[in-house]
């Protein structure tokens, strides 16, 4: 039983890491209806920029704000060059544009900082907590706990930002209806610039944590693919959904790999979340927390 809980908790904590990436998707989708496929590339870009700055002699405390500035500039430029000319295009066109953006960012990141795999040291050890092991016999990584804490903090901040500030209210208005928001005087372009900047900041946090966990390498971009089932499970436009979806996906994925994997030859982590999300969607097509859309002719 202890083993079951160990796997479960490990899964939940890794699920939090997925949520972090999913959050970036949700932010942009919520405010502009764009399904931003480039989020994974942004995570990669942020992590690579941070490591690259460290190599150039920046101290960690300076590198974080510097990377943040780079991410914000990236977001602003994206808004100006990619999104603004594509206003009012069908969603699929915007989606394709973000795939093009993905290629661009991946190329840019590797050209600026090189393609070799690097380690990223955040000063948190990825080792089991001693007192938990002593009392319950389970090993729970300190790093995972810190990651979960960071995610919780980030979600709280974002929730406050969305619900309690003027900009947050404007963001929600834009998400509801572009035209109505424009009509009451909300500056659409400014709002989008803010959202992309915030998404860049979220990508930085996710990039730091994922980079510290798996090393900063090209494979980081595939993390985005792991975040997609989280999204459909939780709903594209729900921040709590991203968290709960991440927890469900993380836990079920690890449990399936451990208990189901041996019977079918292993390696099911790659597709199990998708199939789970798919089955789930058959019963609730708008995700766990997604907004239910009523269609009229």
């Amino acid at each position, binding site marked *: 039983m202890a083993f079951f809980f160990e796997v479960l908790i490990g899964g939940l904590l890794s699920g939090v890491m997925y949520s972090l990436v999913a959050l970036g998707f949700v932010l942009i989708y919520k405010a502009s209806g764009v399904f931003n496929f480039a989020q994974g590339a942004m995570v990669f870009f942020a992590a690579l920029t941070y490591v690259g700055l460290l190599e150039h002699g920046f101290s960690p405390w300076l590198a974080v704000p510097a990377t943040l500035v780079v991410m914000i500039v990236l977001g602003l430029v994206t808004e100006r060059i990619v999104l603004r000319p594509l206003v009012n295009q069908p969603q699929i066109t915007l989606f394709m*544009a973000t795939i093009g953006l*993905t*290629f*661009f960012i991946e190329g840019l990141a590797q*050209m600026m900082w090189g393609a070799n795999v690097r380690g990223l040291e955040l000063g948190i050890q990825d080792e089991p907590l001693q007192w938990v092991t002593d009392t319950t016999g389970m090993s729970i990584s300190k790093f995972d706990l810190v990651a979960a804490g960071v995610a919780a903090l980030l979600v709280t901040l974002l929730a406050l930002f969305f619900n309690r500030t003027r900009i947050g209210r404007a963001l929600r208005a834009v998400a509801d209806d572009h035209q109505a928001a424009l009509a009451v005087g909300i500056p659409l372009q400014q709002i989008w610039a803010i959202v992309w900047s915030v998404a860049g900041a979220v990508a930085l946090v996710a990039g730091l944590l994922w980079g510290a966990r798996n090393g900063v390498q090209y494979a980081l971009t595939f993390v985005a693919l792991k975040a997609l089932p989280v999204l459909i499970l939780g709903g594209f436009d729900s921040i709590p959904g991203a968290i709960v979806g991440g927890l469900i996906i993380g836990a079920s994925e690890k449990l399936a790999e451990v208990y189901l994997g041996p019977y079918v030859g292993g*390696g099911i982590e790659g597709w199990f979340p998708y199939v789970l*999300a798919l089955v789930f969607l058959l019963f609730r097509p708008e995700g766990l927390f997604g907004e239910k859309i009523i269609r009229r002719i």
Partner: protein
Amino acid sequence: MFYREAGQFKTSYQTDAAIFPIRQDRIAIALIVVVAFIVIPLQATPYMITGILIPFLILSLAALGLNILTGYAGQLSLGTAAFMAVGAFASYNFMLRVPGMPILLAFIGGGTVAAFVGILFGLPSLRIRGFYLTVATLAAQFFILWFLTKVGWISNYSSSGVITAQQVVILGYAFTAPTAKYLLVLSIVSVMALAAKNMTRGNVGRSWMAVRDMDVAAEVIGIRLMRAKLLAFAVSSFYCGVAGALFAYAYLGTVEPEAFNLDLSFRILFMVIIGGVGTVLGSFLGSAFVTLLPVLLSVTVRYLDSNFSLHIAESTISNLELMAFGSLIIFFLIVEPHGLARLWQIAKEKLRLWPFPH
């Protein structure tokens, strides 16, 4: 002036329903057919045929399949490459396990198996739509590739799922020379493109378009949603399956499941979007664009590199290509969101009016 239908009267229903009602179109098509079937095999170098033309044609077929699903029936899929993989591996098994199997029948069989898999993964489309469905089709992409790698029987227990396509022999003639392979691929693609064109003009295509434009309204006027959507998935997957079989037999020769990864799915989606959603012509234009662009880019970069002796590192070149590819896609989406097929339409209109402005 050049493209005016004045004087060409339609005097029967048959001429009205003709596939190319305008004489200029018929001449153009005839010219293209002559060039493709006679001039190119005689003139093109083997590199051009194996390196550019064969992949261009095969990917056009796959793009056509995706275009049927996405452009006509409005269901966006990211699992195209996986359906191609199903076609390739199913054809391989038909050839391997059925003695005396004709290869064309094996291709059709591969397509049919892909069609059934397509129906299976199309079932969620009855409940979910939009991006939820798009992400759900990723399940097909990952699950199918995993399945093909894990189940040894499919690849005849070779290591890591690599298969070597059997020789293509039709009626005792072995298609080994590049030109022969090219003609085989060209024939199959032409026949299937013609079928697609006719399908989309007819009853089936109209019901797909009705579903795409508004599925509730389509249901109200008596179109069976389930049948239309699943048929779109089946036909689309059939096309992709045949394209996958050709990819294995006429292009790569030795295939592993990883050749049909998500990247390929994206590339085919690009072809559809850049070429023009919901047009048969667009699939070909888009495929030409996406196939030729990396070649042109690498030629250009290398040319600049050698002429101005910039000494760009090899990795920088590949990164530059990646960036240029990404930005060109964005550029095209901004400049012409309706794709290259729309440009052709505009050009036709211009040709018609020339030399007058209106």
